């Protein structure tokens, strides 16, 4: 290799390593501080815990007790899993139907779904909360229905894009062989839709798991999800228990990192595919 090549390689690595340190250090600093006593966090967050400041897992036990972390984790998991399942199951069916049966009504429906993608949450924040209250949807199960409705836009759009690329002859053959539309859809179409289903599931899971405002407004007074539990620590006007806060941040990040490292390939692919379409 030429001398210039080696030098350019050296600087590339140098740059990457510096960037990697910058990217990882915030998480490391939070982890480090989660083991320090709460009085030694704000004034010296960049020092390692020593004999004087080390607290073991006390911040964790206190943080978990204060926020009810495990119940928040349970609700986050429950809401995310069932919302994502509902979104993938119902919107893929809808997308297939309105793509395959072109009438004026299904066309209008398609454009309504696409339109909803660009509407920011604040536009419907107040009225959606009131509507959900009136219909008694202000509970975890109701929230799943709300997620299905509010998440339908992007998901229907992505599934429709993929359905258009499936040759209709396959479905016609199934129908001639005696399948009704429901059988055709579940035996033939849905298996073909699987890659898009994974993308849709990942994008929605990231949204629902991390969403703060919608669950806070709808169910926040009775049920906490993880983001609500973290924000709850800040509370009203009192000072924040920094120790508990650090422990909660670590506990909030750990499930995401585990999920990321186990299904990284799908996540990066899904996010890139979603961006290109969305």
């Amino acid at each position, binding site marked *: 290799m030429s001398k210039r090549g080696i030098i350019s390689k050296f600087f590339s690595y140098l740059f990457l390593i510096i960037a990697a340190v910058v990217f990882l250090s915030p998480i490391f600093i939070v982890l480090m501080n989660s083991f320090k006593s709460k009085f030694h966090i704000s004034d010296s967050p960049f020092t390692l815990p020593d004999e004087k400041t080390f607290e073991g897992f006390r911040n964790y036990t206190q943080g978990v007790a204060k926020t009810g972390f495990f119940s928040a984790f349970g609700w986050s998991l429950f809401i995310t899993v069932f919302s994502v399942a509902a979104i993938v199951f119902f919107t893929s069916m809808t997308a297939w139907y309105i793509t395959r049966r072109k009438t004026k009504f299904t066309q209008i429906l398609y454009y309504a779904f696409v339109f909803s993608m660009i509407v920011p949450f604040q536009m419907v924040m*107040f009225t959606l909360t009131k509507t959900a209250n009136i219909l008694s949807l202000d509970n975890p199960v109701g929230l799943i229905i709300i997620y299905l409705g509010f998440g339908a836009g992007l998901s229907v759009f992505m599934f429709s894009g993929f359905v258009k690329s499936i040759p209709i002859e396959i479905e016609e053959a199934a129908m001639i062989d005696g399948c009704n539309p429901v059988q055709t859809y579940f035996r033939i179409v849905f298996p073909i839709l699987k890659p898009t289903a994974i993308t849709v599931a990942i994008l929605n899971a990231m949204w629902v798991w991390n969403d703060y405002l919608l669950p806070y407004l709808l169910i926040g007074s009775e049920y906490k999800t993880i983001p609500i539990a973290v924000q709850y620590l800040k509370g009203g006007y009192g000072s924040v228990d920094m120790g508990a806060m650090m422990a909660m941040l670590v506990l909030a990040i750990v499930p995401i990192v585990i999920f990321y490292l186990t299904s990284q390939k799908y996540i990066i692919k899904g996010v890139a595919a979603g961006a290109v379409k969305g």
Partner: protein
Amino acid sequence: MRLKKYFPIFVMPTLIAFIIAFVVPFLLGLVLSFTEFTTVLDAQWVGIQNYARAFSNNDFKNALWFTVKFTVVSVLTVNIIAFLLASILTKGLKGTNGFRTIFFMPNLIGGIVLGYIWQLILNGILHYFGVTITYDPKYGFWGLVVLMNWQLIGYMMVIYIAGMQNIPTDLLDASKVDGAGKFQTLKNVTIPLVMPSITICMFLTITNSFKLFDQNLALTAGAPSKRTAMLALDIYNTFYGKAGWEGVGQAKAVIFFIIVAVIAFMQLSYTRKKEVEQ
């Protein structure tokens, strides 16, 4: 086909959820922006008075200006750094996947958690100067920019990498043979060919920055005296922080929606134009 009678199975569940979670709240929101109300049911028509109050509201004007400035700075920094990282990671160096994994990870962490992570770090740095992040709006502004960079760089980088990997290598070789320098190759070959990725990333960073809420709430919550509140947070504060201002809040939300919609339509027409050219 015999699809017609299957409408209830395929479309009804999604449609009902969509009407509850989107159609009704959206239309109700439009109507209510012209009324004075506290609970939706007691609305009194007041014409465009709410809009006049919104535009003469200093908090709103400040939030709008803050949001625009923040968006411009974030879009530039995020995209330049992401592009740089992507061009290094497509050189075929060893360890590329590991670096990509690290840079992308912050994107999966939710906004509330991100906000508190950076509050710890920025307050830790500012502690050396005897101040905190809420001391001066400037600190909050740059704090949000740093946070946004940390969160979005990896995401945009993934999209740029996908775009760069699609450049045929013979084009790059040809420009080398023709004696083009590194900068000329970048300007005349790489950038024009990854233009679709650049467009996608620009609009993703614009909309993400413009609609920022959770990070803003967690990092500064608008302090000092609402001067670091972005549009979404200002709308939230108007609804839930000031009694009797619900109508103005809804009018602000409609204005916010219109700005976001204009950005989205610009993207749409731009992509359409590009597709025709190709």
